[in-house]
């Protein structure tokens, strides 16, 4: 019997938006603050509209550090709405909301089931008393679950369709904690038909069939690193047991990186129009509010102007004033100047003057980084990054090689701007 369900996870309800400065007006700040809650509302609405047979939530509904009662109440309210339509929901806890974490005494509806952490258990998805599928799942008892939980999943054998619900890192994907580590082959061993996975915020189908392995991703990006559409999967299972996951964007506000090349832009005014046009086009394309991260790139005549004091800040202010003020809105969070002067740096590097010497100096630093020698730059930056309070505040910033290279590039551009006589 065919059926359908929603696969979501990593809701991180009521967690703060990162990367938003203080200048955001109230309407924007409120929209961003409530974005995770509203995206959950959208998921519930999708489930109701699509009349699904179940909703699967693959962990990290909350964040331990940020688990607010508001979030718990909002989540419960969503489950309640589903339950009223007799839609069961199945939830596992992830590393961000392990069962050991604090929880308010908020009762869930009967049709909402959260799997325990002791062992993999299963619950059927029923329609008119007939089992459509069986959901196998296990929660995290604590944050650091290092064992391969996927390996403990085993099909019972009598279920028409087996779904594994788990929060795990498949294949050690970088940038994410390696919790409940497993491999694709591990996932194939338990006899599941569909793996509803959580943990990795970038959604994707790891394996289309036998079994179908899917990361739902988080439904609402919360920082510049979570740009592009975010959402959940609406999964159709046909009578033969073939799952067809369809990604549905659920984000309320979308992070959007927008690149504006300056090469053909002659004046600041034209640049403002170019940025505004790009931003509004991005809103139209997204079909929702966006937080825009604008990068000015390329080489052009206005590069020098951009490097003057306050020009970029003024530009930023003007763009915010003039564009994206409707509904949906576009909040231009930042405008980064990654433009370069219109000089031939290769040629200048060969020159015997100070600029040539400086360019050669930066070249030497780059080479050292390539050789893994980061100490030199670390030493330069130690004043800030070794400062106890600053280090805590910048804990999210990792001074890895890539980062240092980026900083080096920017510093080089700065020096070139300062020394360049073409101005």
């Amino acid at each position, binding site marked *: 019997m065919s059926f359908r369900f929603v696969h979501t996870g990593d809701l991180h309800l009521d967690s703060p938006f990162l990367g*938003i*400065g203080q200048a955001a007006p109230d309407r924007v700040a409120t929209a961003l603050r409530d974005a995770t809650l509203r995206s959950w509302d959208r998921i519930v609405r999708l489930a109701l509209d699509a009349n699904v047979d179940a909703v699967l939530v693959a962990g990290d509904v909350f964040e331990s550090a940020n688990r607010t009662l508001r979030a718990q109440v909002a989540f419960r309210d969503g489950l309640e709405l589903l339950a009223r339509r007799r839609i069961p929901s199945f939830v596992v806890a992830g590393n961000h909301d392990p069962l050991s974490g604090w929880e308010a005494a908020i009762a869930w509806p009967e049709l909402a089931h959260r799997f325990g952490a002791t062992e993999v258990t299963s619950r059927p998805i029923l329609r008119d008393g007939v089992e459509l599928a069986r959901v196998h799942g296990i929660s995290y008892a604590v944050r650091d679950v290092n064992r391969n939980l996927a390996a403990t999943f085993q099909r019972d054998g009598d279920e028409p369709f087996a779904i594994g619900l788990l929060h795990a890192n498949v294949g050690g994907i970088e940038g994410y904690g390696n919790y409940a580590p497993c491999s694709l082959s591990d996932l194939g061993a338990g006899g599941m038909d569909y793996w509803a996975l959580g943990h990795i915020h970038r959604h994707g189908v790891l394996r289309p069939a036998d079994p179908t392995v899917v990361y739902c991703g988080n439904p609402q990006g919360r920082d510049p690193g979570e740009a592009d559409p975010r959402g959940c999967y609406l999964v159709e299972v046909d009578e033969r047991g073939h799952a067809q996951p369809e990604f549905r964007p659920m984000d309320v506000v979308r992070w959007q990186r927008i690149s504006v090349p300056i090469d053909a832009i002659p004046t600041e005014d034209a640049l403002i129009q170019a940025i505004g046009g790009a931003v509004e086009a991005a809103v139209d394309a997204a079909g929702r509010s966006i937080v825009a991260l604008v990068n000015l790139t390329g080489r052009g005549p206005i590069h020098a102007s951009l490097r003057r004091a306050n020009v970029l800040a003024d530009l930023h202010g003007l763009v915010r004033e003039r564009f994206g003020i409707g509904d949906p809105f576009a909040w231009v969070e930042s405008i980064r100047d990654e433009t370069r002067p219109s000089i031939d740096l290769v040629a200048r590097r060969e020159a015997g003057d*100070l600029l040539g010497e400086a360019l050669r100096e930066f070249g030497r630093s780059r080479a050292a980084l390539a050789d893994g020698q980061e100490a030199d730059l670390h030493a330069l930056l130690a004043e800030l990054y070794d400062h106890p309070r600053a280090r805590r505040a910048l804990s999210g*910033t990792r001074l890895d090689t890539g980062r240092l290279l980026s900083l080096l590039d920017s510093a080089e551009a700065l020096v070139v701007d300062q020394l360049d006589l073409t101005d």
Partner: protein
Amino acid sequence: MRIDEIAVDGFGLLRDRRLAPAPGLTLIRGANEAGKSTLLAFVRSILFGFETKSHPALAGGRRGGWLTVRTGDDRTVRIERYGQTGGNGQLRLLDEEGDDLGPDLLPRILQGVERNVYNNVFAFGLAELAQISNLSTADIAARIYGAGMGTGATSVVEIENRLEKARSELFAKQGRNPRMNVLLAEIDALNAQIDGLDPPAIFRAAGGRRELLQVELTGLSVEAEAIAIERHRLERLRDGWPSWVALGAARTALAELPPAPVDADAIPGDILERLALAERDLVAATNRAAELGREQARAVGERDGVVVETALLAGHHEAEALLAALPEARADRTRLIELEHDRMDRATALADALRRLGPGWDEARLLTVDDSLAAQGAIGGPFRVSLEAAERDLEASRAQIAAVELNLADARADLAAIDPAPPASPATPAEPVRRPGPPDGPIARAALLSPTWLGAGLALAAAGFGGALLLGLTLAQAAFVGLLLGAATAIAGSVASHAPERPPAGLIQGSDPLATRRDERLGRVRLFEERARTAGEREQAAGQALERAQGEWATWLSAHGLPAGLDRATAARMLDSATAARASLAALHGIQGRRDAIGTRLTSFESRATAFLAGLGRVADDPLAGLEAVRRDLANALDAAGTQQRASQDLERVEAALAATGASHQDATTRLAAILAEGHSADSASLRGAIAEANRRTDVAREIQAARGTLVALSGPADALVAFETDLATIADISDVEAGLASVAERNRELEARRAATLEQLGAEGRAIAEIENSAAAAELRQQRAERLTEMAVLAESWSVTTIALGLLRRTRSRYEREHRPDVLKEAETLLAAWTDGRYVRIHAPLGKQIQELERRDGVHVPLAGLSTGTAEQLYLAMRFGLVEHFGREAESLPLVMDDILVNFDPLRAERAARSIEDLATRHQVLYFTCHPGTPLAAAATIELPDLSPG
């Protein structure tokens, strides 16, 4: 650029001075105060503006002037500047045609060199040369080092400083104000707030407090229940205590009561009420009978005490009728008197009227006069017309006759004048014509007399004398008759004298003129005689007509009862008098009638009254006065009769009441006897005593029953009652129970207060929990923290970029200093070595910093402070020459102006430096000011400056 002309209009002591320097080296020589320094200042001022208030035009002229220069592109430009104060003044750049090229051209001509650089590098005196600081300003230093670094005028040190400043504005290790330090403080504060809002802790704490409060609430409820039980027991004891006490007292009283005298149960319950009722009725009947007796006596007295005039009462109807008519009778009496007065007045008036009509006039004659309106109308109407017409005709005829007689007399006189004996004529010419009546004939006289007499009569009548009136009337009648007789006689005579006469025929046919005139006059006489005759006839006819009219008038008078001979006016007045007299007569008759009727009526009434009074035995001279007395007596009699009647009625009523009261008394006596028999008592007092005894026993029994009922109601029956009574029996003093109750109430109040407080706290905790559940505060704070962390990350990147840029730039500069010598320094080192004969080989000047020391040929580093004045000046001059050469290579060369800068050089070094200057002048224009005639310079041109000092 080179200067072709220096033109001073007015500047310091210079005035209207023009110099024309050569393209190469020009020696400008002058004694002290010849104006060399002033010229140097002038060149600087024209190129860069005036120093404030320096070099005023003391020798006159306008402060300023111009330089004519030749630019690199071979243009001649006049740079002209005037001004009284500091600053730009009035700057103009003119071409050879005098066209203004605009001030913006000047910076381009100067190749961007600014005042500071020019003044220290290109135009300097000994004073500027000796100051090292002049070469260490940033722009000059940058020129020195930037030249070789490719950074132009940009100072690396300046860049470093800029970067350092930007970096330190972002973050400082120990700072508080840099933005990142501020952010860190804010983040710490937010962390503290977020920790304070830690939902789990708050939620757990609130939940824990709520549980504790609920436990406390349960405990309070138990305690409250115990208090309630105790309070209930005490309240029962308190409420039961009065009954308990009453029960004891009643029981004691019952034991002490004597045996019942009568069988209380056998006596009807209402006997006392009935007894009291019967006794009350008996007393009431007795009292009523006494009261009625008194009323009876009073009524008899009233009835018998009144005297009534019965005869008067019997005839009271007649009396009332008479009394009713009495006012009319009195009025009749008054009217009779008045009427008699009127009658007498009327009678007198009638007599007067008859007297006025004349003698013989009495009432009978008066009644024969026709005084109707027709009669009165006839006097003024037909008779007036006929009589007056006849009289007028008669008068007219007579007037005509008189006129004709005059004419006839005239005609006869004319005839007599011609013929004194005229032929006989039918009439005597001297005799007047006979007329029917002369003007004073009998009719006229009568007509004249009659009014005279009538007037006298009327006058008398007006005086009220009737006799006079009658006399007047008689006289008038007589005159009227005389008049008629005279008139008739006159008419007859006139007719006879005026018979017509025919003239003689001979007079008519003769031809004698006299005869003709006599005939003519005779004809006229005849004519008038004829006319006179005709007039006489007419007069006669008129007299006859008048006679007829007067006859008719006399007939009419007689027919209407009036005396004959009256004229119309008198007749009319007599008719009026007769009418008035007849009116008086009619009035007299009316008064007499009324008097008679009233007199009859009054007499009748008086007769009736007299008879009535006589019937009452009363004799009165005036029956009307007698009736007045009857009026008074009748009222009294009627009052007395009414009083007597009312007294009789009262008496009847009282007697009836007395009978009824007697029956009531009897009834009450009977009932009383029956009640006493019923109560087995001889009298009322005995009966009441027996019943009171019985009732006391009943009351006590009831008290006992009520008290037990109250106790049962408070405790319940059976064992509960026993227990309650036992509890009550333990009470020694009820105040102990009251005190216990007060204590319990206090405990209860405290408990309620605690309970209310606990409930309040519970509510507050509940609200707090609800608030936590719905609060976005924590999320908002975290969002704020995230925002600051974001800003922190952004700023950290900026700081990192700046820090890396600064670090690597410093490293670059250090390396560059090691590996590169700036051209300026190299050239300066060459010159210095040449001038010092190789003694100093190297100038040490870190990149962007001041020159710090010289390195001698032997490797010894000599700090600037260790140099002699001359050597130091040679170092600075060498540096300047290096810079000039550098400018020359990088851009266009600028004129070099020096003021006696070699004075501190020893001769050898001065000689060598002079050669260098000469060499420099081959590439750059050099103006060298000196006061020394022996300056070792081979100049292309020499300009001698005159001495400007006074004297």
